[in-house]
C-alpha cells in the first residue's frame, strides 16, 4: 500500500467570474520514504493540491470529488477532529514564505513547542527541551537563546529553518514542501534543500516537493509530475523526465532554463501565459502555446498515456506517462524536437556524470 494515494481529485473555486477548476481529476501516489516532485508554472494547481492534502482549502474553494488515501484512510472522510490530529503530526507542511507562516507575536520556540505539546502530549519543560534539540538540528546557532526570539529577529534562512523544525517536530510520515526556497537566495537555497533531504532520510519521511524550479527537482526527487492548468501533463521517474521528456510543455520548461556558457542571444521561453482557469481552451489546454499544435489538439483532450504503447496510463503506474495526442496517433506531423544530452546519460551508463554529485 502506498503511503499517499490521490485518486481523481477535483478542486473548484466558485467565484464571481465563474468556476475556477484549480485541480482537475488528479491521480498520483507517493510511496514511503519517496521524494516526489510537483512542477509547473504559477497557477498550475500545485499549491492547491498540497492544501487539499491537509484539507486547508478555504471558501469559496471546495474539494468536489476524489479521495486522498493516507496510510489507507481517506482524509476527505475524516471528521474535523481526526484531520487535526493528522495535520502537523503525520502530514507536515513547509510553506513557501516562512515570514508569513510564523506568527509574529509568539516566540519561535513557543511556536515549535506548541505543536509538540499538542500532538505528542509533552509537558512544557520536555517540549522546550525537544524544541531546542530540533532548532539545533536544523542548524540554528545558540538554539537555547534563540528559543525566545521573535520571528523578526531571525533572518529569512533561519525563519525557514525554524519552519522546517516545526514540520519535523512530530516525526511526520509525509512532508509537503510548498516552494520552500522561493524566498531565499541561492546559497541558502542549496543549504535548505540539502537539509530537507538529509532530515527526510533521517526521519524516514516521504517528501512531496512543490516547486517551479526544475533544477531543484533534479537534485532532490525520485519521481516527478509536471502540472499544467490543474492537470498532470507528464509523470515520470526524474531521470526519464530530464533525458527524455515526452510532453511539449516539459520540453518548453527544459529549454527555458538558462545555462552558463550558452551562446544563444535570447533565452528560449514558452510563448504566452497560463490560461485562465475559468475558461480553459478547448481540447488540450496547452495547445494555444504549443509549437506542435494541430487541428486535432483543439478538439480532443488527451489523457495521460504510455508514450510507448499509446495505452491509457494506470493511475497507480510509476512508469513514464504523458498527456499528448502524439501518443494516440492523432498528430499528423508529430513532435519535432530533438533532445541533446551533454555529458553522459546516467540511464545508460552507471559511471558518475560530470558535475552530478547525486550518483
Amino acid at each position: 500500500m502506498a503511503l499517499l494515494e490521490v485518486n481523481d481529485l477535483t478542486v473548484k473555486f466558485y467565484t464571481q467570474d465563474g468556476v475556477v477548476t484549480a485541480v482537475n481529476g488528479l491521480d498520483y501516489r507517493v510511496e514511503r520514504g519517496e521524494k516526489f516532485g510537483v512542477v509547473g508554472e504559477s497557477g498550475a494547481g500545485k499549491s492547491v493540491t498540497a492544501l487539499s492534502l491537509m484539507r486547508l482549502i478555504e471558501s469559496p474553494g471546495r474539494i468536489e470529488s476524489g479521495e486522498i488515501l493516507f496510510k489507507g484512510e481517506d482524509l476527505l472522510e475524516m471528521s474535523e477532529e481526526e484531520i487535526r490530529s493528522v495535520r502537523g503530526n503525520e502530514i507536515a507542511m513547509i510553506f513557501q514564505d516562512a515570514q508569513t507562516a510564523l506568527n509574529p507575536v509568539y516566540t519561535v520556540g513557543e511556536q515549535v513547542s506548541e505543536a509538540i505539546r499538542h500532538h505528542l502530549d509533552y509537558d512544557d519543560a520536555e517540549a522546550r527541551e525537544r524544541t531546542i534539540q530540533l532548532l539545533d538540528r536544523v542548524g540554528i546557532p545558540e538554539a537555547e537563546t534563540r528559543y525566545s526570539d521573535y520571528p523578526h529577529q531571525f533572518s529569512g534562512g533561519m525563519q525557514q529553518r525554524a519552519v522546517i523544525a516545526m514540520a519535523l517536530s512530530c516525526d511526520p510520515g509525509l512532508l509537503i514542501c510548498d516552494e520552500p526556497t522561493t524566498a531565499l537566495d541561492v546559497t541558502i537555497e542549496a543549504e535548505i534543500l540539502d537539509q530537507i533531504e538529509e532530515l527526510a532520510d533521517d526521519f524516514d519521511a516521504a517528501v512531496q516537493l512543490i516547486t517551479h524550479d526544475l533544477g531543484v527537482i533534479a537534485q532532490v526527487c525520485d519521481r516527478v509530475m509536471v502540472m499544467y492548468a490543474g492537470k498532470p501533463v507528464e509523470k515520470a521517474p526524474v531521470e526519464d523526465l530530464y533525458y527524455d521528456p515526452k510532453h511539449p510543455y516539459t520540453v518548453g520548461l527544459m529549454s527555458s532554463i538558462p545555462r552558463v556558457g550558452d551562446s544563444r542571444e535570447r533565452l528560449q521561453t514558452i510563448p504566452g501565459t497560463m490560461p485562465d482557469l475559468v475558461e480553459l481552451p478547448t481540447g488540450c489546454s496547452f495547445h494555444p502555446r504549443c509549437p506542435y499544435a494541430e487541428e486535432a489538439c483543439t478538439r480532443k483532450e488527451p489523457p495521460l498515456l504510455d508514450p510507448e504503447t499509446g495505452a491509457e496510463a494506470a493511475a497507480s503506474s510509476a512508469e513514464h506517462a504523458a498527456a499528448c495526442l502524439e501518443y494516440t496517433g492523432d498528430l499528423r506531423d508529430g513532435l519535432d524536437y530533438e533532445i541533446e544530452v551533454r555529458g553522459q546519460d546516467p540511464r545508460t551508463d552507471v559511471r558518475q556524470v560530470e558535475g552530478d554529485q547525486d550518483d
Partner: protein
Amino acid sequence: MRRIYDSEALHRDDDEAFAPSEEERSVRLQALRSIDSTALSDRLIPTGLRRRAISVDVSTPRTEYSEGEPVPFSVTMKNSLPFPVTVSTASPILWTWTVDGEREASRVPLHEPPAEAGRFRFDRGERKEFRKRWEQMFRVSETEWESAAPGEYTIGAGINVEASDGAALYDETVVRVVPE
C-alpha cells in the same frame, strides 16, 4: 490552542516602549463598525424588488463572424438602486452563459455544484462586467469538442436564479456564423 494572552511567550513590560503593558484594558476592543449589507438586503428588500433592481445585458462587438473565429462577448450586470443588494442564487454558481441553451457551450454537464444557495452581492449602483469568449465549439463529451456549423446562434447569460428567463435577470443576443 494556547492564545497569546495566556501564553508566557509574550514579554510584557510597563516601562518598555515597544512591549505590551501588564495592565488589563478597561475598555473592550471593538471591531471596525460596518453594516452587513447582505443581511440587511435579505431582511429589508423584497425579493421581487431585488430582482428588478438588477439588469443583465449581453453584447458582442459584431453580429457576424466567420467560421472558426472566436466570438467575444461581454456580460454587464448593473444594480440600479442606490443601496447594496444581494441576490440569492440556486447554487454557488452565480451566473452562467449559454450558446443555444447549452451551458458554457457544453452538451455534457461540466459542474456538479453542491446543493446550497449562493449569494451574488452588488454594491450600490455597481456595474459588473465579465468578458467571455465562445470558440465556436461545442463540448460533446468530457474530452471532445465539435465545431459549430454556419448559422445563427443565440448567446445568453443570466443570473443563476430559478426561472430567470421571465425576469430581467437574463439577456441574449444573436450572432451569425458565416462560411469563410
